[in-house]
């Protein structure tokens, strides 16, 4: 990655709280102008990473570079990085305009310019005429916009957003997702966005860094993260996935033969797969098909246990004779009636089933 496309670099970042290891050696390059999401379960170190980038927390080890300059020791007020806090942290004793203008006033921008830029910002976040209101008089969505305006008005090189939509209801959340994305493109500011909501991450991001236990599990585009998860954890964290624990029996060319509790399953091999290895075969629920009639080619047999109807889709629960339960999600428009207890055939397109290493039990 060349110097001018990389905006921010993290090198060997570690953070220990007392004896608790929060970050376990992070390396990351953020590309100028991108929307990068840190995704992961709570306690995975997302917020700690963000706070270190903002300067609100000191790393125990490692460095932070902004445009090639080491800013690890710089206090937050000296960094061209701004944060939108999870609870917005709007100053309750200042009105909306004073909140938005705060950063400019701290930078000693002339008063007339502050007023002008605050007005521009209010227009951008569609809150014209709200300047005189106090934060307590705003709705959640409006507060959220003020928080973004307050940071964005400083035209930071990098905007950090810590679950900014976490407190909003689902409908408003969806609406704000597209607004935020639009705003990011309009402003041309690089975003690092935190969420634990996989759908939000897939919707908005250029790239997603999936985190777990203070490490990156996978850093990839939403498409690749979904289609080609790197590990079983990545596969289960995003989307609904069937994980089949298998042992590699043999490899010939592109093909690998797997054994799952006595059932032989063919799959497409990967370059890291070796005979005798235990690994997981992941099949997304919506890509696992079932029918009473047997298909051409490879299939498994199972017993239909029941299903959950969800309007356009139905998720069926099918038990293999090995005792494994698999889930298959199908569109309801042309579904076949299957009764519980009936035997069905299960199959999938081999291209859509990936081999991954098993990291589900890992903990630090």
């Amino acid at each position, binding site marked *: 990655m060349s110097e001018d496309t990389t905006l921010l670099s993290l090198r060997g970042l570690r953070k220990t709280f007392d004896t608790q290891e929060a970050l376990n050696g992070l390396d990351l390059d953020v590309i100028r102008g991108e929307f990068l999401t840190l995704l992961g379960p709570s306690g995975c170190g997302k917020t700690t990473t963000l706070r270190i980038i903002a300067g*609100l927390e000191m790393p125990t080890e490692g460095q932070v570079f902004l445009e090639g300059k080491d800013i690890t020791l710089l206090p*937050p007020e000296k960094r061209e*990085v701004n*944060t939108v806090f999870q609870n917005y942290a709007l*100053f309750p*004793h200042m009105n909306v305009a004073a909140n938005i203008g*705060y*950063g400019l006033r*701290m930078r000693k921008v002339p008063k007339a310019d502050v007023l002008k830029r605050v007005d521009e910002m209010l227009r951008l976040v569609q809150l014209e005429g709200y300047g005189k209101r106090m934060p307590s008089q705003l709705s959640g969505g409006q507060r959220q916009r003020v928080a973004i305006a307050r940071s964005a008005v400083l035209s930071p090189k990098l905007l950090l957003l810590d679950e900014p939509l976490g407190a909003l209801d689902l409908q408003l959340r969806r609406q704000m997702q597209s607004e935020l994305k639009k705003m990011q493109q309009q402003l041309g500011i690089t975003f690092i966005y935190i969420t634990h909501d996989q759908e939000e991450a897939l919707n908005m991001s250029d790239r997603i860094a999936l985190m777990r236990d203070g490490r990156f599990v996978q850093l990839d585009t939403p498409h690749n993260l979904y289609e080609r998860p790197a590990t079983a954890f990545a596969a289960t964290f995003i989307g609904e996935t069937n994980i089949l624990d298998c042992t590699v029996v043999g490899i010939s060319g592109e093909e690998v033969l797997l054994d799952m509790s006595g059932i032989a399953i063919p799959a497409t091999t990967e370059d890291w797969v070796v005979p005798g290895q235990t690994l997981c075969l992941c099949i997304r629920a919506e890509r696992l098909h079932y029918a009473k009639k047997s298909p051409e080619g490879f299939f498994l047999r199972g017993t239909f246990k029941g299903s959950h109807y969800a309007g356009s889709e139905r998720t069926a629960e099918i038990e293999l004779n090995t005792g494994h339960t698999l889930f298959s999600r199908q569109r309801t428009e042309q579904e076949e009636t299957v009764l519980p207890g009936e035997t069905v055939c299960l199959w999938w397109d081999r291209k859509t089933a990936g081999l991954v290493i098993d990291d589900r039990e890992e903990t630090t």
Partner: protein
Amino acid sequence: MKTDGSAGGRTYLAALPMSLWAFLFVGISLLYVIGLSLLSRGEGFGAQLPVTLDNYMRLGDRLYLRSLWLSLRLAATTALMSLLFGYPLAYFISRARPRARTWLMILLIAPFWTNALIRIYGWKILFYANGPINSVLRSLGLIEKPLKLLYTDFSVLVGMVYAMFPFFVLPVYSSLERMDWTMAEASRDLGATPLKTFFTITVPMTLPGIMAGLVLTFIPSIGLFFISDLLGGANTMLWGNLVQNELLKSHDMPFAATLSVVLLALTGVIILLYKRVGGKADDIVF
């Protein structure tokens, strides 16, 4: 107390014992003092009719006006000095680790387990011409002759601030404790230095505590008499000393009552002003 319409009546009933208690122990004694202030001096400790405003007329005397001015000035200085020393202490305690915080609070409150009068006697000993402070200064060669510390405005002020500043620390501590520190982080993030953040965010956000602390130190300071008595000697005639003198030396109960009513009225006005600027009376009692 805020109540909604439907529960209003019942809440009122529930508060009845409290109101009764307040009337018995506060209301009656207040009425007694006000009534007394309208009578004339009687034999010995007594009071007698007729009802008169004579006592209030006497207040116009220069002596009393001067004493009132001195008392208000000392109370204001005490409150401001409490702010100066109390705020940093409250800040320090609230930012300490939870275990340390508990110990610091105990240290702050521990002196209250001893009688205030005895603690002020302690200061008196410290201030003696041959007391610890002077001996230390002398042995360090900083002074040749002992400093006159006792019976000065300085010693009275020290005693007052010492006695009053915990009442400043407590409400400020509780508002610092309740403060959302991400506000300070947001301020730093937006480019403010720690000092700037303190004055633009922390102080305004803890203003209710500061106001409560000022009222809590100012009001009792106007009436405190034993500190000026012990550390100021006869040099300082504060309002509290006047009340004490009229009562215990001149045995003029009605006039002592009049002086007390003035103090009460003053306190009432200050609390009203405090409420006017947005303070909640609840914050004082926290």
